[in-house]
């Protein structure tokens, strides 16, 4: 049904665009959009910038995931760390971090570094928050049990703590991935020399309407793919651990 609705909407869009009722400056025909995307692909421009953005997202995500999980586990186990970090976590959810983007650009330049660092910090908080919640939600007898079985400290973490928190961690990673994508794209749109955000901003200032629509669709597809990928991992883990 949803497919039909989408086809219907696309048809309606095309009809309005063709009828000349709306200016092609805001309402391009789908054909023109497709053509603009094709031109961008043919010149090699699209894949270059897509690759840059994807790389930034992956690196930022890796940084946010490792540091967020580590900090979350530490905060869950050690009350002083938790006490120090929890107000900060709550605070970051109510302040607009984007206001810091210009600062990151000034300090780390227009290249990849400013995007990766901003996106990693942006995404760190939900990962850390969910990991922390996962540790706090554990059965309090689990870790004493592990120790009484003679597990070494490292084994306690890798064999007991981490697997037990995994569902919460994965939930955090899903949120972190969204923020990574947002962080990278927003920074690129504000100040950059490459990437999908840069391409979008340039098409926007040039009022290349058809290209803007095409790029928005491609970028949303990239974000959707990133979301689906991490979601699929989460479902897979859930399925496997059920039988463990």
């Amino acid at each position, binding site marked *: *049904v*949803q497919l039909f*609705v989408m086809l219907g909407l696309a048809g309606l869009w095309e009809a309005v665009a063709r009828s000349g009722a709306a200016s092609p*400056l*805001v309402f391009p025909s789908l054909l023109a959009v497709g053509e603009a995307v094709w031109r961008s692909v043919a010149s090699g421009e699209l894949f270059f910038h897509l690759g840059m953005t994807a790389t930034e997202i992956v690196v930022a995500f890796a940084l946010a995931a490792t540091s967020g999980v580590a900090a979350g586990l530490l905060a869950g186990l050690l*009350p*002083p760390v*938790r*006490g*120090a*970090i*929890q*107000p*900060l976590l709550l*605070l970051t*959810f*109510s*302040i*607009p971090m*984007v*206001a*810091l*983007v*210009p*600062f990151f*650009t*000034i*300090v780390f330049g227009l290249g990849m570094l400013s995007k990766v660092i901003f996106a990693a910090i942006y995404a760190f908080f939900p990962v850390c928050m969910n990991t922390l919640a996962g540790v706090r939600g554990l059965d309090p007898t689990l870790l004493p049990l592990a120790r009484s079985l003679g597990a070494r400290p490292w084994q306690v973490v890798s064999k007991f703590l981490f697997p037990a928190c995994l569902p919460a961690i994965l939930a955090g990673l899903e949120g972190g991935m*969204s923020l990574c*994508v*947002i962080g990278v*794209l*927003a920074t690129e*749109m*504000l100040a950059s020399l490459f990437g*999908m*955000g840069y391409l*979008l*901003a340039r*098409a*926007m200032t040039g*009022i290349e*309407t058809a290209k*803007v*629509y095409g*790029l*928005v669709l491609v*970028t*949303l597809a990239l*974000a*959707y793919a990133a*979301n689906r990928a991490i979601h699929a991992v989460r479902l897979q883990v859930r399925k496997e651990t059920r039988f463990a």
Partner: protein
Amino acid sequence: MGRRGERGWGLLTSGLALTLLAGWEAAAAAGRLDPLTYPAPSAVAVAAWAMIRSGELALHLWPTVQAILGAFAVAAASGAALGLALAASPWLYRLAYPPLLTLYSLPKVTVFPIFMLFFGLGFTQRILYGAFFGIFPVLVNTVAGIRDVNRTLVVLARSLGMGRVQYWQKILFPSVLPMFATGLRMAFVYAGVGVLLSEMFVSASGIGQRLVSTAGSVRMTKYFVYVATVFTLFVVATNLLRWWEERLHRWRAG
């Protein structure tokens, strides 16, 4: 650990923050930090005071506050209306809710150029773009709130022979309101981020525009004043909304 203990650790955080600020100040005083990019906190405070006295801060703050409040109002009203419609009609829910959730999870920054093409550079665009950010939490929380209404209460209302108006007024509205308030608090932050982004991308006025232009100037002192202003604005507003929200939750429970 009880609430008291957590509060004690909260003090530790404030202490850490103060130490950090003091360290920054000391490093700046010792000439270890580039004063153009990392101005001392005291220099920022002095600049802030001067900008308050001259009216410069208020001049740039006001359009942003207006746009955020406008976007927030549009998001709250349309999110509540759409949420009610979705919860009232099962087929509309099945048809429209999944795509809306997908849209919620996608990066809304990317759509900015389309808003600009449709609504130009002005105030309307900023309000609608902010509302586009803010509508989702209101919508999702309203739907969740309505679908979560205690079944016993619904049966009770029916057996008491309540009319539609009475049911809405006595059962539905009080049950949904706390969730709705949670949605509103998130909507404020989201709508505010939308407005700021729009100002940062293309605007001749507002804090967002100042953030970009002052970061690009040689001395970044003013930039830090604007960052501190924006953060304070958001923290005050969300704490007010949180206070209201907690009162509603208590009232619902008690």
